[in-house]
């Protein structure tokens, strides 16, 4: 038996915990928490085993359950694809999920929340869905679990359904992401239909018959036989498909303009936020791009779009984070911004950088949210930072771990975020210089936005830290915070350590400078010849080849020489981050900080209103679609139904006229009879020629 035989259990265990919590939770001691912890711990162990097996050079790509056996057409199936990327993500997801479960003991159980079975059922299903998504071997299965992830986010964000806010936020989260998924679904269907004629397994992610590989053959080698591209050039059509799938990515990963649901989603319990932001829902989008990177790397236009969207979102969200007053809001915008970086990396050919940042971000964002959760417990569920202050001394564990996370987020060396963010920006830069034509320019523009966002990141992160933990306590609650227990501190400590160290898994710059083989993640994801899984064609080496030799022609250009460019890039981003931190320090690390937002003038209003993104989207729903539906309703009732009723009225009216013929006077009857007879006689007499 190998680890892969147990792979289905990775997702099934949390699913079982979902069932247990849902139906038996109220009878269990911790209302289902223990089942969830056991399940996620089991998943983690299995994931680790799987990862070790993968490290041994084995991979797995099998259809396990035939969803439907197509008769004279293609099958749809559920299967498992395990390559290093999957293994890594499985680890991250089950690890974060485990910590979130543990933390929930403190956040939910200890706080005496009701509806806990529902909560743990939701967490279990959420974890299961995400794990299922992660090792989906084909895009339809990915979509299915992607949707289930959306359902779980709905259930968990709306957990406190008795209040007005959470149900509304849950609805918004589901709707906005569903809007993205709409495009994703078109993409999925399009991919199946496009490739059905060319391969037996049109939806597969990896391997020779998979759609990225077939697409590559079509574009690079011109092997278009059996492809249905609806009359388009293959490249054009693949671009369209890629962009459609990207719709789902932008929804789930909260990329502009579909990011609006995410800040609202803070209505959910904080551990849920941690799970959503670090490992599950939001990560799903970016992970999907990474999963089918072979497909995206083929089409320069999609790469450009991804890069631009990512760079823009990174900057855009960071600016909004600057003015937020609530702890979780700041974190929410930082999440949007950070996923923007990942998109930027993916778009500009920095596949490994993106996965790296995904990994580090998972750790430090989980840490920050759990830290925020600890603060919120302490503050009796008060989330406004202006009501806090001076918590540093009262809750040191939380403070120091939170600080580690913040440093990572801000990108301060040597915390995790520095290494990954630096690599993201570096890759964008060198590919921007190296790639010819518009694509290179796009990369540089995206890079510039990403770079600028570094400053804001540093600023809002430390604004948050200073307002929350430093200075004087500004309220009574802040003076006497509620204590937290081991189940809160434990996860924080674990994550704090990781946030500090996880960056060392991929010290690519160090390798370049010193030649030390310390770019472990790089090697992990390379899939080079002899690595045991090159046949899956999901390794970076293959992607690099596609990027390089495909239509995108992404090349490396180092204007200041290899070392010079590397150092310049690193210094630039670090410098901006530090500048941001210092700016925040000068404004907010004072005993009695005040809001400085008024200095921004009209920009403040703009930022506070999130660039009016919500407004126009709400208008689209309630100001456009709803009135349209009312109009349709009026039309339906008035015109369509009116015609139906009209026909009946006309018939009845003519009926009421016809019956007037019967006057009741028998002489009239005789008259009518005579007239009729005479008319008949005359008419037939004339036509019959009687006279």
């Amino acid at each position, binding site marked *: 038996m190998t680890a892969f035989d147990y792979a289905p259990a990775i997702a099934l265990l949390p699913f079982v915990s979902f069932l247990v919590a849902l139906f038996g939770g109220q009878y269990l001691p911790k209302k289902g928490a223990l089942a969830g912890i056991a399940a996620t711990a089991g998943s983690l162990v299995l994931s680790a085993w799987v990862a070790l097996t993968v490290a041994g050079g084995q991979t797995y790509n099998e259809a396990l359950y035939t969803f439907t056996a197509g008769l004279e057409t293609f099958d749809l199936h559920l299967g498992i694809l395990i390559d290093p990327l999957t293994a890594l993500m499985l680890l991250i997801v089950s690890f974060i999920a485990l910590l979130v479960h543990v933390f929930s003991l403190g956040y939910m159980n200890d706080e005496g929340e009701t509806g806990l079975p529902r909560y743990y059922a939701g967490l279990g299903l959420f974890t299961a869905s995400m794990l299922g998504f992660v090792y989906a071997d084909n895009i339809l299965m990915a979509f299915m679990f992607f949707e289930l992830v959306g359902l779980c986010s709905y259930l968990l964000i709306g957990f406190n359904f008795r209040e007005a806010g959470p149900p509304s936020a849950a609805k918004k989260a589901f709707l906005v992401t569903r809007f993205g998924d709409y495009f994703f679904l078109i993409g999925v269907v399009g991919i199946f239909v496009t490739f059905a004629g060319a391969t037996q397994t049109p939806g597969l992610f990896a391997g020779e018959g998979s759609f990225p590989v077939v697409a590559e053959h079509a574009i690079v080698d011109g092997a278009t036989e059996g492809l249905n591209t609806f009359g388009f050039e293959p490249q054009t059509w693949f671009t369209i498909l890629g962009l459609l799938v990207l719709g789902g990515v932008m929804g789930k990963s909260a990329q502009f303009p579909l990011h609006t649901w995410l800040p609202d989603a803070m209505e959910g319990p904080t551990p849920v936020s941690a799970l959503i932001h670090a490992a599950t829902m939001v990560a799903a989008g970016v992970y999907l791009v990474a999963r089918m990177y072979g497909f995206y790397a083929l089409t320069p236009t999609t790469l450009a779009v991804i890069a631009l969207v990512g760079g823009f979102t990174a900057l855009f969200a960071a600016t909004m984070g600057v003015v937020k007053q609530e702890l979780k809001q700041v974190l929410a915008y930082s999440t949007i911004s950070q996923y923007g970086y990942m998109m930027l990396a993916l778009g500009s050919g920095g596949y490994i950088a993106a996965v790296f940042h995904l990994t580090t971000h998972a750790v430090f964002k989980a840490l920050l949210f759990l830290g925020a959760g600890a603060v919120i417990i302490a503050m009796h569920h008060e989330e406004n930072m202006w009501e806090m202050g001076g918590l540093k001394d009262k809750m040191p564990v939380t403070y120091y771990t939170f600080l580690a996370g913040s440093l990572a987020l801000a990108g301060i060396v040597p915390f995790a975020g520095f290494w990954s963010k630096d690599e993201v920006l570096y890759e964008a830069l060198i590919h921007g210089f190296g790639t010819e034509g518009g694509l290179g320019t796009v990369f540089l523009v995206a890079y510039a936005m990403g770079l600028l966002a570094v400053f804001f990141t540093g600023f809002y992160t430390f604004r948050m830290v200073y307002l929350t933990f430093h200075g004087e306590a500004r309220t009574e609650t802040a003076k006497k915070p509620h204590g937290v227990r081991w189940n809160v501190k434990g996860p924080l400590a674990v994550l704090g350590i990781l946030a500090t160290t996880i960056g060392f898994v991929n010290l690519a710059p160090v390798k370049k400078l010193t030649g030390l083989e310390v770019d472990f993640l790089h090697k992990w994801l390379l899939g080079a010849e002899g690595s045991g899984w090159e046949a899956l064609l999901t390794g970076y080496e293959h992607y690099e080849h596609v990027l390089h030799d495909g239509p995108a022609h992404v090349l490396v250009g180092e204007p200041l020489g290899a070392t010079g460019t590397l150092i310049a890039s690193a210094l630039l981003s670090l410098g901006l981050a530090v500048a941001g931190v210092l700016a925040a320090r000068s404004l907010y690390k004072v005993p009695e900080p005040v809001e400085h937002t008024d200095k921004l003038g009209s920009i403040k209003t703009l930022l506070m209103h999130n660039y009016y993104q919500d407004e126009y989207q709400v208008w689209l729903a309630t100001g456009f679609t709803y009135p349209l539906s009312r109009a349709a309703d009026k039309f339906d009732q008035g015109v369509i139904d009116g015609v139906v009723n009209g026909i009946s009225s006309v018939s009845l009216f003519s009926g009421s006229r016809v*019956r007037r013929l019967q006057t*009741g006077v*028998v002489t009239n009857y005789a008259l009518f009879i*005579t007239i009729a007879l005479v008319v008949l006689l005359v008419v037939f007499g004339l036509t019959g020629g009687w006279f």
Partner: protein
Amino acid sequence: MIPTQYYLLLSAAVFCIGIFGVLTRRNALIFLMSVELILNAANINLVAFSFQYGNLSGQVFALFAMGLAAAEVAVGLGIVLVLYRNFSDIDVTEATTMRW
């Protein structure tokens, strides 16, 4: 011998008078009489044609028709009688409780 056409004209005239009576008279009895005229117009035809063709079926049938006409009048008079009892009149246009 009188040509058959003459009989035909006569019967047509009688028939029309009958119809005219039916249309114009409101008295039930006159209505009945008019109907009798129509029936007798037919009888004239039957007899005349019978004579023309030289077979007797027309004549015999005319006899039958006369008998039936008598029966019809009998029934008709009975109805007129109850009409009078119920409506105190034998004006056929009076009875109009049912219409439309």
